[in-house]
């Protein structure tokens, strides 16, 4: 009995002593605490984000930093677990005394971390999670997002479908997407935008396989029976690959137009499937390796390839943009310590990014703290410039940032 307690005490004392004492009186440093998943299904996004963020930090520090401040960025695997990420965020804020929280791929984790950011009044730059809630009804003053949300992708998708109706009259539409918030949000937002545009359509099927479902055969055969003109999907990552591989042999893509405006155009799909990827799929993503054909984008993609030996997925550009947004804000304010001034600086911040076509500069909307960007949607076609991919997107349709933003007050109306 006694020994039990002795051991308990020894360990508790150990806890108190072992914890690193946070003494950081360093001068002229911007500390960023980043969290990304680096294991499991979303691990690729995390690893690409880390590489791109480090690239941005090296570039900025190489030029003498932002207003003399060097950037010091720390990465921790969020394990895609909200409770764990919250613990890491708390450690970043109170022990490491970071100036910014940064990153996060999953919206569930993002929602938990934005809560801490609000409570602790610490700026949180979201770089990859896409739930519209974070910049609408769950928005708090210290949150900013530098990548598209699902509403913007789906609004662009709705415009695409509206145009398509003129050239190739379509009537029926079906949806299949993972059975969790991300899958449901996309479908709701697409229909919202279609209705707002006054597009007439008939829904002939809605399917909700579980996230990471390995076997889509029975969904595919049901979809073949529904025979929609347009097949919208809301998968991401490996699920897209599995669905396309299984659906292809049933001839589904010959009858229905495959349409995936949010995550379908991500390079991971092209690199995984190579020549197996069918031509004529209509896909969108938040950044493309072959569009826009600007010097900034070419340099970004080439530098990333030089650094890692592979081409980036879209998560990379989000992380890259996040680091630059922080540097620009610090330049305006003059130091990284005045949080309220930094919030003001970030609101309305203009920043030229690799995904901006000529003549457009991304900016952060002061009302929603959401970055406003041009959105492009393309069609798969042969292109071997980015191996191991054998197909890339082309035949672009471009949508202006102002046309795809959520209406004020969305979703509470």
């Amino acid at each position: 009995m006694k020994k039990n307690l002795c051991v308990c005490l020894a360990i508790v004392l150990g806890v108190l002593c072992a914890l690193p004492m946070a003494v950081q009186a360093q001068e002229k440093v911007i500390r960023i605490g980043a969290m990304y998943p680096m294991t499991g299904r979303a691990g690729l996004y995390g690893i690409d984000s880390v590489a791109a963020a480090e690239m941005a930090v090296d570039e900025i520090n190489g030029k003498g930093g932002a207003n003399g401040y060097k950037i010091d960025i720390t990465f921790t695997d969020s394990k895609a677990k909200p409770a764990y990420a919250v613990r890491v965020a708390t450690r970043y804020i109170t022990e490491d005394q970071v100036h910014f929280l940064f990153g996060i791929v999953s919206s569930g984790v993002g929602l938990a971390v934005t809560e801490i950011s609000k409570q602790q009044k610490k700026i949180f730059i979201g770089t990859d999670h896409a739930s519209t809630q974070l910049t609408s009804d769950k928005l708090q003053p210290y949150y900013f997002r530098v990548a598209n949300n699902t509403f913007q992708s789906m609004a662009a998708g709705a415009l695409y479908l509206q145009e398509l109706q003129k050239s190739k009259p379509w009537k029926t539409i079906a949806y299949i997407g993972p059975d969790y918030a991300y899958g449901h949000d996309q479908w709701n937002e697409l229909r919202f935008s279609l209705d707002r545009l006054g597009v007439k359509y008939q829904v002939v099927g809605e399917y909700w396989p579980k996230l990471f479902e390995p076997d889509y055969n029975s969904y595919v055969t049901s979809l073949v029976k529904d025979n929609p003109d347009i097949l919208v999907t809301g998968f991401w990552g490996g699920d897209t690959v599995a669905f396309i591989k299984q659906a292809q042999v049933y001839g589904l893509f010959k009858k229905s137009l495959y349409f995936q405006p949010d995550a379908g155009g991500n390079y991971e799909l092209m690199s995984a499937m190579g020549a197996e990827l069918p031509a004529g799929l209509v896909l969108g993503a938040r950044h493309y390796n072959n569009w826009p054909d600007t010097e900034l984008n070419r340099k970004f993609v080439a530098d990333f390839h030089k650094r890692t030996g592979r081409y980036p997925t879209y998560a990379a550009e989000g992380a890259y943009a996040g680091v630059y947004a922080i540097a620009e804000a610090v330049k305006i304010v003059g130091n990284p310590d005045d949080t309220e001034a930094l919030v003001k600086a970030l609101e309305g911040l203009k920043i030229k990014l690799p995904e901006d076509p000529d003549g457009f500069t991304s900016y952060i909307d002061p009302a929603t703290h959401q970055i406003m960007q041009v959105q492009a949607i393309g069609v798969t076609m042969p292109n071997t410039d980015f191996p191991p991919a054998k197909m890339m997107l082309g035949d672009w349709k471009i949508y202006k940032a102002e046309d795809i933003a959520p209406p004020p007050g969305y979703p509470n109306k």
Partner: protein
Amino acid sequence: MDASFLLTQFISGLTMATLLFLVASGLTLIFGVGNVFNFAHGSFYMLGAYFGYQFVSVWSTNFWIALLLSGVCVGLFGMLAEFAFLRRIYGRANEGGFQILLTYAFILIIDDLVKLTWGAEYKSLPRPAGFGGAIQLGDIFIPTYNLLIIAIGMIVVVAAWWVLSHTRPGQVARAAAVDREIVSVLGVNVPMTMTLVFGIATALGGMAGALAAPLRTVTPGAGIEVIIDSLIVVVLGGMGNFWGAWFGALLIGEVNAFAVAVVPQWATLFSFLVMVVVLIFKPEGLFAARKVRKV
């Protein structure tokens, strides 16, 4: 809903059921003979998929040879895991909890080893030559590769039945499942038998992984998704019962296929619902391998 659609849906369910069974058969075999619940079985499935990718896409091996080699490699890996680690906890008090932890440690370690070896990018491998298309009967499409999977599943069922009931190693394994001590008194090397059974079971899992790879995505974390479904199948059929696993897989596959067609909104809940309903009436599963210890 016409007859041809019902048939299509049935075949879709059968494909899913066969792959489920191929994974679950190894799981139930290990449990039946060794009383080990191997949570890492999904990770062996994932390893099989990666070996398949390595052989076919990187080293351009013939698909059929690659399939066999993947099974063999994963089986050797499994035997090593049993021989070096699992064996040490047999017979310990509260063994169940230690089994869960040890096999969970396997999951964690294999996940990172895979990431270190192959990176985090998604991999995919093409269907083998001659099995890339579909047979069309009226308005029914049946992918030839799916038919192949179903056929292989049948062969495995029959072969396993024959080995277990007609060969000496099979009989020894079944006897060891009932009473290890007696079998060992009879002069059989029981620990060796256990290692061998573990090897065969993980080889089945690995082969299932390689066989499924042309239809699915080869990615870190792929093992987690199949383990829960296989677990449902094994529990449903009665743990340790080979035929039970086959029936359980069929039930889950078909229930799922028709739930998708009729109530797509709720399809993901059905496999759990089936399991809960069965377990309320038959807590030891549909075909319990032996009398359940009532404690």
